[in-house]
């Protein structure tokens, strides 16, 4: 039932959106924290623009309405799990209605660094009900393609250590205290997120990309696949 035509709504139609007006393409890059999504998004953007496409890139918590509020709430470490899920859902809806849909109407390629799937996976990892959050996010548009950069937890740990050099409170799920310290909590929390994303793969028609490959290899794989959408 979830394998719907691109740009249909999953389960809840948004008022005032005529699907036939949407001329653009909606492409989603999904995957856990530190998997290398943003690198790919910026390379894809440059490539697509070089090909002559107008591109909008967007990502979680970047919206005009709720982006700032979310980042302030996270600084205070005060967010309960349901509150966090709904705050992100608010931001997503704002970006969908005020950025993504207008861009699709104008014929843009919308390249989004994460979509409802990370939002749902984080909620599920925190023990919230899958059916609940799936219906809450049901007003999302079905993308033309969803690329899931899949990695094992140990690879994410390596990337965090070699990259930023420290574990992040939220990326470690420390709000839920999944482990005694940031490392242990990160390992358990990210494993839960990955499991939740894995379980969505078939249901939502993810294209799985092995994130253990080099960034160049991944980029070429994405390019080949995206080229077929035009």
């Amino acid at each position, binding site marked *: 039932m979830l394998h719907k035509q691109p740009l249909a709504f999953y389960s*809840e139609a*948004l*008022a005032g959106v005529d699907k036939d007006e949407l001329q653009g393409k909606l492409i989603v890059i999904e995957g856990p924290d530190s998997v290398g999504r943003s690198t790919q998004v910026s390379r894809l953007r440059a490539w697509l623009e070089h090909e002559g496409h107008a591109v909008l890139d967007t990502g979680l918590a970047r919206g*005009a*309405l*709720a982006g*700032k*509020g979310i980042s*302030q*709430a996270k600084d*205070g470490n*005060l*967010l*309960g*799990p*349901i*509150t966090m*899920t*709904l*705050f992100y*859902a*608010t931001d997503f*809806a*704002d970006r969908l*209605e*005020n950025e993504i849909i207008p861009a699709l109407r104008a014929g843009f390629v919308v390249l989004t660094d994460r979509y409802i799937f990370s939002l749902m996976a984080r909620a599920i990892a925190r023990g*919230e*009900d899958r059916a*609940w959050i799936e*219906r*809450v996010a*049901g*007003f999302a548009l079905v993308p033309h393609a969803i690329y899931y950069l899949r990695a094992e937890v140990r690879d994410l740990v390596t990337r965090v250590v070699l990259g930023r050099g420290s574990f992040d409170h939220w990326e470690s799920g420390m709000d839920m205290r999944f482990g005694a310290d940031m490392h242990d909590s990160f390992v358990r929390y990210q494993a839960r997120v990955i499991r939740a994303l894995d379980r969505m793969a078939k249901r939502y028609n993810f294209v799985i990309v092995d994130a253990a490959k080099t960034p160049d290899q991944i980029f070429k794989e994405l390019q080949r696949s995206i080229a077929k959408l035009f």
Partner: protein
Amino acid sequence: MPLLVPNRYRGKLIVVEGIDGSGKSTQLSLLSQWLRSQRIAVSFSEWNSSPLVRETTRRGKKKNMFTPVTFSLIHATDFADRLERYIIPLMKAGAVVCADRYAYTAFARDVVRGVSRKWVRNLYRFAVRPNLAFYFRVPLEVAIGRILGGRNAIKYYEAGMDLELSRNVEESFRIFQGRILDEYEAMIQEVGFHVIDATGSIEEQQQQMREIVIEQLGENLRNGILRASQGDIDAAQAAARVL
């Protein structure tokens, strides 16, 4: 699909609902004073009052950025924050929490704004089911008379101006509140409201509320609920003054 989660805490949850001008806040305040006079620990929670979300709501309202879906979601976020950080912990401690508006406000208002009944009911599925939910039924004209007599300006979203029902604020408010009233009326059975005739005198309404509270929660109010001795009250007030 179950509507709301049963309350499995020691404390109890009492909510009031109704359109603007139905007098529900006055009644809830009288009820809570009555409960306090019996040394029952009472806490209040108001709709749309979470400090976490306040800035975002303000930004959205000021710049008219809301759509029906984001309006609904930001109120659910506000509600979730109050529930997770305030209402549930207090009920765990055994308090009686009095809520001025609850999820039912969203069931009525957000549906009028254009989200589906099914979607908004699912959205609030995490909410704790109140032990008592009072609905203050009042004819539209009576409520409007109270509102227009009592203050100067109706705000943009309060009047439902985002729905473009009318360019006249008062007219828009009238249509908007009328539709909310219809939604409330339609959910009485579904959510199990205790209907209070809000055209009666303040005293009559309060008497009715107290009778229902005694009838429905009497046993719990005698046992189980957190009660304070006069010594506890004095100590708590002294501590609050120090802070």
